């Protein structure tokens, strides 16, 4: 029983992070109908930005509340900027081209980032994983029984941050003018443009928003794993994508549910079956979902109209 509870907690902690990254995929897919392959790698770049900032701040500063806020702010702003440039110079010129062109570009960017960061030339960090500094010093937040169930402070904090980001996003998408514009672009960007919505700006802002969310999620992931490596973007990004598809891609709440489901499934497989199979679980699950319910849990498979 205690073991089950512990797995539930770990699964939820991992799931919220997947959910945050999945939200980025879903938002971009919503407005552009593009699977932003590079999303996970943008996240990885954000984590490195946070890593560099944490070191620049020094040992005492980075674990203070202000320090953590600065680390998150730098990473999220930096990523928003990166997202803006990627959208502006790689995706926007291809918007009216066949979908395959944009997909190949996205794959290319993903590849260039994840393997470019493995070089050890100049400021690039090299392939070896590095220890992520303890911006949140691990403290046991809640211990039940004889260490049967342990809840760490970073689990609570990251859960809190993730939930706050999600609630903020929910508000933004469904309660603000910008959110309304976003949903209009997602519905039909040509008609939205006719209605006077600046579609280019909305799409760019959506990209920046999703990249910033990814950076936040990436930092939480790095704190959980206490490490950062150039390939983390590829793996976390892929799993988050799986989460987005499970929930129904393009569907905001679906991404959250998908993330949580995937986090729990992975945790239970690791806990009760074999930990070495962990990376295969997500994709096996994906194929299963596509077979049974191809639109995901919340989405629908809509017929393509001409």
């Amino acid at each position, binding site marked *: 029983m205690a073991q089950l509870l512990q797995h539930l907690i770990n699964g939820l902690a991992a799931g919220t992070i997947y959910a945050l990254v999945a939200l980025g995929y879903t938002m971009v897919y919503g407005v552009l109908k593009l699977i932003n392959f590079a999303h996970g790698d943008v996240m990885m770049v954000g984590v490195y930005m946070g890593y560099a900032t944490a070191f620049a701040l020094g040992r005492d500063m980075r674990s203070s509340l202000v320090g953590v806020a600065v680390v998150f702010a730098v990473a999220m702003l930096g990523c928003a900027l990166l997202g803006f440039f990627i959208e502006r110079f790689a995706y926007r010129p*291809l918007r009216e081209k066949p979908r*395959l062109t944009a997909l*190949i570009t996205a794959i290319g960017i993903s590849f260039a980032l994840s393997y470019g960061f493995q070089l050890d030339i100049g400021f690039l960090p090299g392939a070896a994983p590095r220890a992520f500094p303890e911006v949140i010093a691990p403290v046991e937040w809640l211990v039940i029984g004889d260490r049967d169930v342990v809840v760490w402070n970073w689990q609570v904090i990251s859960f809190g941050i993730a939930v706050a980001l999600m609630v903020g996003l929910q508000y933004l998408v469904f309660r603000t003018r910008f959110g309304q514009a976003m949903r209009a672009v997602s519905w039909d960007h040509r008609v939205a443009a006719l209605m006077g919505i600046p579609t280019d700006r909305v799409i760019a802002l959506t990209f920046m928003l999703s990249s910033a969310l990814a950076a936040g999620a990436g930092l939480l992931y790095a704190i959980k794993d206490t490490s950062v490596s150039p390939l983390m973007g590829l793996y976390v990004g892929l799993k988050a994508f799986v989460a987005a598809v499970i929930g129904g891609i393009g569907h905001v709440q679906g991404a959250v549910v998908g993330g949580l489901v995937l986090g729990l499934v992975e945790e239970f497989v690791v806990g009760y079956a074999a930990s070495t199979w962990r990376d295969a679980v997500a994709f096996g699950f994906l194929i299963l979902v596509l077979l049974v319910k191809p639109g995901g849990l919340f989405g629908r498979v809509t017929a393509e109209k001409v």
Partner: protein
Amino acid sequence: METPAIPVPEARSVVPASLRGLLPVLLALPVLALFQWLMSDAPFASYLLSVVGVNIILAVSLNIVNGMTGQFSIGHAGFMAVGAYISGVLSLNLKDIALSFLPVAVSDQVFFVLSLLVGGLAAALCGFLVGLPSLRLRGDYLAIVTLGFGEIIRVVVQNTDAFGRALGLSGIPQTSSPAMVYFFVFLTVLVARRITGSSHGRSLWAIREDEVAAEAMGVDTTGYKVRAFVISSFFAGIAGALFAHFVPIINPGSFTFVKSMEIVVMVVLGGLGSTTGAIVAATFLTLLPEGLRSLFTVLGAEGSLAQKVDQIRMPVYGLLLVVLMLARPQGLFGTKEIWDVLPRWIPRKRRGLA
């Protein structure tokens, strides 16, 4: 997109129709034998040629899915791995058996071809299992699922004792030869060209140009997509099996996402839909790092630069994809073949490989 050039079969020919399909194979055999004889005392050259050949098979077969059908698979290395491991294990188990009525060398080759086919079929089966759910949906799902499939293969291999886990398989009989590799290169190209010219190929082109329209015209889109995918996986499996029989060791590291990307870059660079483009790009991109490496070694760059060639290759591939898509999305040849692009110093009559 420009309309694909579909070769129109010519009616008049001296060769009887029943033999026409076999003719290229019969003509190729003595050439390959000669080639094998010339290569016999140059181990590195024949290794390099085999690698080029395997990459050509991979690129040409991926082109059937990514180019002709307009779907996007980025897990070709996964199918290659299936072929390599299945045939490798089979060959290891059949190593000590020989057919007594045949000379040993011939008997080895019989078993080699057998294990190649088994490897190819296993990969084709995997292609079917992976392709069926994802090809029912819109194309971009295939990209993710194939990528995930590659990962599953890696995890399965790393957790199975029979596949040597992370250490890999060694001691697979080295029965492959450049002649054998190029025989299969030839076969793959032949099949790819035959598909282009057939009604099957025309259906694939229709799906590529507009899936909804193709479906409206009565093309069984899922069926054709899955078949194209299975054919492509089969040849990827063959390529993997060939690879397993001329490298000293195969391990999960040889079949990662990097390998898949390499093949994708070859196909995109050559031109999505161009078989000869895939051949040219595969040859070029395989020999380029080798060339650069030997160049840097000759220049005496103390090994550091020569070692970096492999490292730098991958980000460069990524950027190459982005630049290609922005500047020249059709690649080198687009959907044309090399003889449509080159100046017409070859008389028009001799056009058409298959």
